């Protein structure tokens, strides 16, 4: 009995070790992962360089925290101010623009708050506010959440005092938030990529889009080995260069779901 158990353990041992394999850990966000972008483009990078990119997809706040702890080699999130702070604090070597898309306001097709009639994003948000319509917020300090807060601020109002009434904070990822919007017939702010890839749209539709304030920029950072010596800064650097270079940018542009492009490459060409 004991011998059997030991031989099983020995058999499984090799699959447990992580060392010696050629990989980097990329801390990124659930929205990027759920869009399917990584599944599409990362194999191309691996094929070229032999470096596997392992994606840990969490909320932006957690990704930044993990990166500060040194639990990763590169960072790809969409919260520019936080990213720049991250580099300034010495945790990252440098930050670069990679790609962008935009945020959209989705809501029930009946649109009782008349969001779709708004001329600007301030109008849209004011309409929701005025109608006391259900609004589902990420409530988790993510890139999307911070963008949402900026947009509320533009319309001159802070909704958090109504938390629990018509303003609902899920503290969850975009998917869970969209699920709730779908189930409750509420409005929410989402990035376009997640929206297009989302499979439970139900009665929800895009009701407002295109305002310049709804621009959503993604950035990539290589972690600083001076802070955490175990960081694979060389391989991470290769990844960053590939992403920002012609090949990576082309792959990003080529990625489509239902014929629609989800991300628009905008790295500064060197």
């Amino acid at each position: 009995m004991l011998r059997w158990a030991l031989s099983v353990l020995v058999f499984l041992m090799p699959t447990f070790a992580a060392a010696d394999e050629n990989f980097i850990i990329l801390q990124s966000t659930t929205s990027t992962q759920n869009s399917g972008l990584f599944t599409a483009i990362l194999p191309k990078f691996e094929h070229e360089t032999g470096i596997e990119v392992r994606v840990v997809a969490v909320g932006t706040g957690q990704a930044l925290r993990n990166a500060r702890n040194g639990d990763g080699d590169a960072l790809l999130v969409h919260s520019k101010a936080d990213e720049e702070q991250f580099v300034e604090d010495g945790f990252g070597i440098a930050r670069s623009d990679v790609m962008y898309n935009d945020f959209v306001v989705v809501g029930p097709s009946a649109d009782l708050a008349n969001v779709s009639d708004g001329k600007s994003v301030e109008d849209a948000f004011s309409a929701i506010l005025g109608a006391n319509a259900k609004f589902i917020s990420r409530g988790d300090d993510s890139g999307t959440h911070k963008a949402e807060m900026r947009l509320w601020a533009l319309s001159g109002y802070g909704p958090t005092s109504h938390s629990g009434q018509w303003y609902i904070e899920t503290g969850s990822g975009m998917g869970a938030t969209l699920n709730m919007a779908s189930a409750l017939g509420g409005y929410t702010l989402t990035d376009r990529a997640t929206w297009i890839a989302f499979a439970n749209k139900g009665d929800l539709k895009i009701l407002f889009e295109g305002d310049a304030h709804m621009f959503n920029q993604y950035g990539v950072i290589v972690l600083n080995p001076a802070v955490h010596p175990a960081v694979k800064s060389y391989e991470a650097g290769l990844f960053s260069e590939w992403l920002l270079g012609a090949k990576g940018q082309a792959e990003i542009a080529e990625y489509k779901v239902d014929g629609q492009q989800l991300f628009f490459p905008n790295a500064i060409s060197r």
Partner: protein
Amino acid sequence: MTDFGDSLQLAMGLILSGDESLWAIVFLSLKVSLTAVAIAGLIGMPFGAFLAVMRFPGRGALVVVVNALMGLPPVVVGLSVYLMLSASGPFGVLQLLYTPSAMIVAQVLLVLPIVAALSRQVVEELYGEYREQFLSLGVAGLRTIPTLLWEGRFGLMTALLAGVGRAIAEVGAVMIVGGNINHVTRVMTTTIALETSKGDLGMALALGVVLIVLAISINVAMSLAARSSARYAYA
């Protein structure tokens, strides 16, 4: 709307088609959880028996603590293990984070109290039955433990199955310490969470059905294994 019937069909299709990526995930789930339960069993069963048989100051308090730890929230365990294994943490040098090994560590911590507490219960009842006879035969103290563990093998198997159930069904711990990395640390429960967050509720439910079928299969397999050695236990 998500139709349960549709999901059931989808689940059957997934199982029968031998979908490769699904089986890779199933295999990883089994590897992680069964290994964790095996380790927890090797530690927890003797420890539970020790608690049942030995008397020492503070024993009562220790029993209460072990019982209480059965209710450890998986997400708390996950967070704690993450902090231990993080590059900024005390065991960062081991580079175990985001590997199946980290998931096993977390699940061992989750399952250990269950196995220990239930083992203690089983052995304590047996000990009540055998105590005088053992004393009379000259079997005392720690020497009773191996015998009692073997005598109680059926109750102990139930304890292990309870551990397997807990391990294979939890998502909080493995999500944080494993990172749900595709092809590396993605197991059944984290896949279900992922599909749910993608809004693909039908698929998530189908995977849930597969997970239940998996759990039932494990229980059936262990019962059959036990049946063959049941000859000597009961009339």
